[in-house]
Structures are given as structure tokens and as C-alpha cells.
């Protein structure tokens, strides 16, 4: 496994440096085009500066920027117990040192991505649509795929090459625009001496060609790396889950969806498990896509027959795509037989579309810190975080319902403070003072503990009791 990661790193580093040289050469020629002989080195320096600056930003703040851009919200165990369960399972299988942070993106399109510069600090984000559509086995496949990206250091690498690509595109854009508006750079040419003029003319022409070609070159390199990494992550996912059909079904469901992700863009597209942007018009050639074609990925997964190690994936890959090494040689040397497991029985359940639309909506609301109240008459009320009254009279029966409003304020926007105060107070009296909460239905429910801290139960919550993380009271849950 470690050898595999190292081999992967070496190959990627090589491509990474080719892209870097691309950037520096571009900088050199653009500088030359502007200011003659000495300009080349100034341009080189400026290009290098841009590269370093952008890399620094993306290394230290990249994760949070990406998560913010995709509007992912960090969630606690209660919001989706199954997701936490699956992530923990895969964390153990992948031997990850820490539990990744888990984020949910309140969007209907099914998709997922992982961020994190190293396995010690990483996060996995999935959309609400994905959670709603996939069963446990499929979800496990997707999580394993994302986990593999973290393990293989793909995220770090893709971020850096993404930044590099961005720098190249940025530089050539600036150059081409300035050429356009300054009339082919004649302004600069007239300043230099007669002898230098000719040299500069050549530099300008080369710079122009470079400015047009470099972004294309860099993009093709970037995409080639990106596609290869998707296959490798698929292979690792199969190895982790021992169940290729799970990921295959998940990919099938993801590819069948008609929603486009509103929060994804060209810069973040490569991070997702499936291309979040729908191709407009005709199917673009494989060369210009961040992801390998979906049906090919599915076909390879379905072709795996004997076992779930890397050799089995490579064999399946060869039978479909022909001779091409997708797994580094060290992975192929692994001889340990990994048997494919059978599907878990619990994963065969179907819901009506209406029900699943409701569940999806509720999940998105829970992520967005809505409160769920159930009136005794059976009407469910879902209150947004900016609801400011502490009492609500039920529109159906007129009963007054208490809204844990102070607690709601603590939930929206003050999570950081909340976490600080989460240390359990060792008050013996409080510990004995347990109370019973009666559930009114099977859906989402919000109530407050006696100490005032808000508690949200998800439909999947099925324990008989739990301990309040603020005051240490035992809360018993009874009801349907």
C-alpha cells in the first residue's frame, strides 16, 4: 500500500514539474515580449512568485475555501448516523489515523468529494441527494472512493496542479488581453533600440504562441492526471469494500441524475466523484474531461470477477480498455487474495418518490439548522433558523407549542462557542436527574434538554437513551 502511494507520488510529481516548467517558460517569454532581454528573467520571477503565492494560499486555506464554495455544512452524528457509521467503517478499513470531518452539501444532485492535505487532517463532503438515493452498500463504495483519494494524496496533488493550471491560464490571459489592447505590443517595441527590435519581435511571436498553447498543454496534462487518479481510486475502493457492485451501482445512479450542481464550477469539478457539470451539447472527447467516462468505469467494476485486489481490477481494466497500466507495478505485485463479499440484506429497500422527496428536504433542512416541531395534533412544523419567537400556535389545532428559541440561536452561527462549552459538568445531582422524552413520530424532532441545550433527533436515531453533552443528564427516548 505505501509503496503504491510512493509510486503514485513519483509519477505525479513528474507531471507536476512539467506543468511548472510550462509556467516558468511562459513567464520568461511574456517578460521578454514586454521588456526585451532583461525582461525574460523578470517575467520568470513574476511567474514563480504567482505560483508560490497561489500554492501557499491553497495549501493553508484551500480546504476551507473549497468547502465554503460548495456550501458544505459540517454535521454531527445525529444528522445522518448511517453516513458516520460507513465513514468510520471505511476509516478502519483504510487505516486512516483520524476520523475525517463529515460535511453535507444541501443539494439535490448526487455527488461527493474529499479534501485534505494529509490523512491526519481531512474532510469528506457528500450531497444530500446522494444520501437520499444510495443504499448502504453504494454509499460505502462512494465513501471508500473518497477515502482512497485522501490516502493516495490525490487531493493535495490535484489542488496544487489545479493552482498551477490556474496560474498559467491567468498569465496567458493577462498577456493576450494586454496585447489586444496595446495594438500588438508596438508601444513596447518602439522603446527599444533598433538591434533589439528584431529580437523582441521574435520574443513577442513566441510569447503569443506560448500564451495560446501553454494553457491547452497544461490543461491536457492536468486532465490526464485527474482521469488516471479516478481509476486508481475506484480500484482502491473495491479493495477496501470488497464489493465492486456497490460502487458500480452508485456510479450508475449518479450518472442517471439530471440535476446540475449549483455550487460546483470548473475549478472544483475535478474534485468530485463524478463530473458535477453536465456537458452541454455533444459528448466531448475523452481528452478534455476531468473524469473517465462513467459507463467505462461501471463496466470495469462489473467485470471484476475473482477477487477484490488490485490485480483483479487491472485485469478487468485490461479486458475493457486494452493494455495500459492503471495500477503502479507495486500494487500488481500484491498477491494477497481478497474475496468479494456478498451484498448486505438491509440494502434492498425502496421508498415512494414522495417519501424520498420529503426525506431529502428534511435532511437539507436539518443541515441548514432548521428546527422540527411536532404538534400533538400530528402537524409537523419546520422552523427556519431565523425564526425569532419562542412560542408558536399550531395553525391546525391552535395549541401553543414551545420553541427552544434561545437554543436555536446557539445552533445557528454560534457552533464554535457551543463546542467550547461542551465539556460535561461533573454535577452528581444533574446526572441523576434524568428525564424522558416522548417521540411523536418517526421524523426529525427538535427538543431541548432541561439544561437548555438543543437536541435534534434524526429519523434514523434508534437508541433508547443518550447523555446530554452539556449537562450530563441521561435522556430517555420513548415513543413509536
Amino acid at each position, binding site marked *: 500500500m505505501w509503496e503504491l502511494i510512493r509510486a503514485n507520488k513519483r509519477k505525479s510529481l513528474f507531471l507536476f514539474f512539467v506543468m511548472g516548467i510550462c509556467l516558468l517558460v511562459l513567464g520568461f517569454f511574456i517578460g521578454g515580449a514586454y521588456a526585451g532581454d532583461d525582461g525574460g528573467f523578470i517575467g520568470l520571477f513574476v511567474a514563480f512568485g504567482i505560483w508560490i503565492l497561489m500554492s501557499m494560499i491553497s495549501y493553508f486555506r484551500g480546504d476551507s475555501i473549497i468547502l465554503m464554495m460548495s456550501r458544505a455544512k459540517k454535521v454531527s452524528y445525529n444528522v445522518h448516523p448511517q453516513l458516520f457509521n460507513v465513514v468510520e467503517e471505511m476509516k478502519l478499513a483504510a487505516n486512516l489515523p483520524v476520523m475525517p470531518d463529515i460535511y453535507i452539501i444541501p443539494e439535490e444532485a448526487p455527488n461527493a468529494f474529499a479534501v485534505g492535505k494529509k490523512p491526519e487532517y481531512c474532510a469528506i463532503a457528500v450531497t444530500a441527494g446522494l444520501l437520499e438515493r444510495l443504499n448502504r452498500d453504494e454509499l460505502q463504495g462512494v465513501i471508500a472512493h473518497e477515502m482512497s483519494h485522501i490516502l493516495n494524496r490525490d487531493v493535495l496533488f490535484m489542488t496544487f496542479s489545479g493552482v498551477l493550471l490556474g496560474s498559467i491560464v491567468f498569465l496567458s490571459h493577462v498577456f493576450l488581453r494586454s496585447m489586444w489592447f496595446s495594438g500588438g505590443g508596438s508601444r513596447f517595441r518602439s522603446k527599444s533600440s533598433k538591434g533589439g527590435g528584431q529580437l523582441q519581435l521574435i520574443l513577442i511571436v513566441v510569447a503569443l504562441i506560448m500564451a495560446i498553447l501553454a494553457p491547452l498543454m497544461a490543461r491536457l496534462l492536468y486532465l490526464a492526471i485527474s482521469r488516471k487518479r479516478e481509476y486508481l481510486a475506484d480500484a482502491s475502493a473495491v479493495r477496501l469494500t470488497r464489493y465492486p457492485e456497490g460502487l458500480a451501482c452508485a456510479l450508475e445512479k449518479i450518472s442517471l441524475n439530471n440535476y446540475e450542481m449549483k455550487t460546483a464550477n470548473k475549478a472544483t469539478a475535478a474534485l468530485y466523484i463524478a463530473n458535477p457539470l453536465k456537458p452541454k451539447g455533444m459528448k466531448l472527447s475523452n481528452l478534455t474531461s476531468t473524469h473517465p467516462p462513467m459507463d467505462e468505469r461501471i463496466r470495469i467494476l462489473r467485470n471484476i470477477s475473482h477477487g477484490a485486489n488490485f490485480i483483479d481490477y487491472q485485469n478487468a481494466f485490461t479486458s475493457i480498455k486494452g493494455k495500459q497500466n492503471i495500477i503502479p507495478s507495486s500494487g500488481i505485485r500484491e498477491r494477497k487474495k481478497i474475496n468479494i463479499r456478498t451484498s448486505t440484506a438491509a440494502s434492498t429497500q425502496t421508498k415512494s418518490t414522495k417519501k424520498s422527496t420529503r426525506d431529502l428536504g428534511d435532511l437539507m433542512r436539518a443541515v441548514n439548522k432548521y428546527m422540527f416541531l411536532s404538534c400533538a395534533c400530528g*402537524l409537523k*412544523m419546520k422552523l427556519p433558523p431565523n425564526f425569532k419567537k419562542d412560542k408558536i400556535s399550531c*395553525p391546525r389545532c391552535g395549541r401553543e407549542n414551545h420553541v427552544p428559541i434561545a437554543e436555536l440561536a446557539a445552533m445557528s452561527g454560534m457552533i464554535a462557542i457551543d463546542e467550547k462549552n461542551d465539556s460535561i459538568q461533573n454535577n452528581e445531582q444533574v446526572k441523576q436527574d434524568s428525564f424522558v422524552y416522548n417521540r411523536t413520530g418517526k421524523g426529525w424532532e427538535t427538543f431541548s434538554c432541561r439544561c437548555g441545550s438543543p437536541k435534534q433527533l434524526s429519523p434514523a436515531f434508534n437508541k433508547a437513551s443518550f447523555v446530554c453533552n452539556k449537562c450530563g443528564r441521561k435522556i430517555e427516548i420513548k415513543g413509536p
Partner: protein
Amino acid sequence: MDCPVCKNEPMIVLELNEVEIDYCLSCKGIWLDAGELELLLGSSTETVEFLNSFTSDDITKEKTHKCPICNKKMEKILVIGNRKVRIDKCKYNHGIWFDSGELEDILGMRKLDNKNKVLTLLNDMLGKKIKE
């Protein structure tokens, strides 16, 4: 999501028997998201029929409201049955706003759903007596 009429007044979501509406507690208006109408009426053909029966009303002096989702001005729509009901619809199809009672009026006069199941449920939801 804030009520387009009362502004700064958060709408709450009500759910009963898997039917869901956005509801303003102060003006008692109802907002239906794009997909919500279809779920409410239970079939896409009826919804399409319903939406096609709309005639836009440009001459009215009634105050325009802004779509709570995209914040752009909504257009006025006349639904003509035995009476005329004027509702607000988002031009970008984010949803429809019904002032208090308008949705019930439309459901009542158009007989959109068989046996008025939806109307019964809606009245039940908002604690109104069923009109005979």
C-alpha cells in the same frame, strides 16, 4: 425563506400526510416551490394543465412581490374559473405565491383533483372547516 409580502418574516414549513407547504404565520399566505405543486396535485399532467391555464395579467395595479428564492419581481397571473383569482408566479419558475385563501379558492373552483382530496387536506392542515 422569508415571506414575500411581510418581508423579514420567516416562513415556516408545515407537513401533514406527506404534503408540505411553506406558510407565513402573520399573513397566512402560502408559497409552493416548483416541485411542490406537482407533489400536491399528485400527477404531472394535472400540474402542466394547471400551469398552462395561466394568463398573465400586466394591467393590474396590485403591488408586485419578489420571489423569496431569487429575489426578482414575480409576475401577476390570473386564474379564471367562476371567479378570478390573481396570484404571483416567479418568472424563473421557482414557485407560486398564494395570498391567504387563494389556493383554497383555486382548488375549490377548478376541481383540479378528484374528490377535492387536496382541498380537504389543506383545510384540515390550516384548521378550517370544510366548505360544503
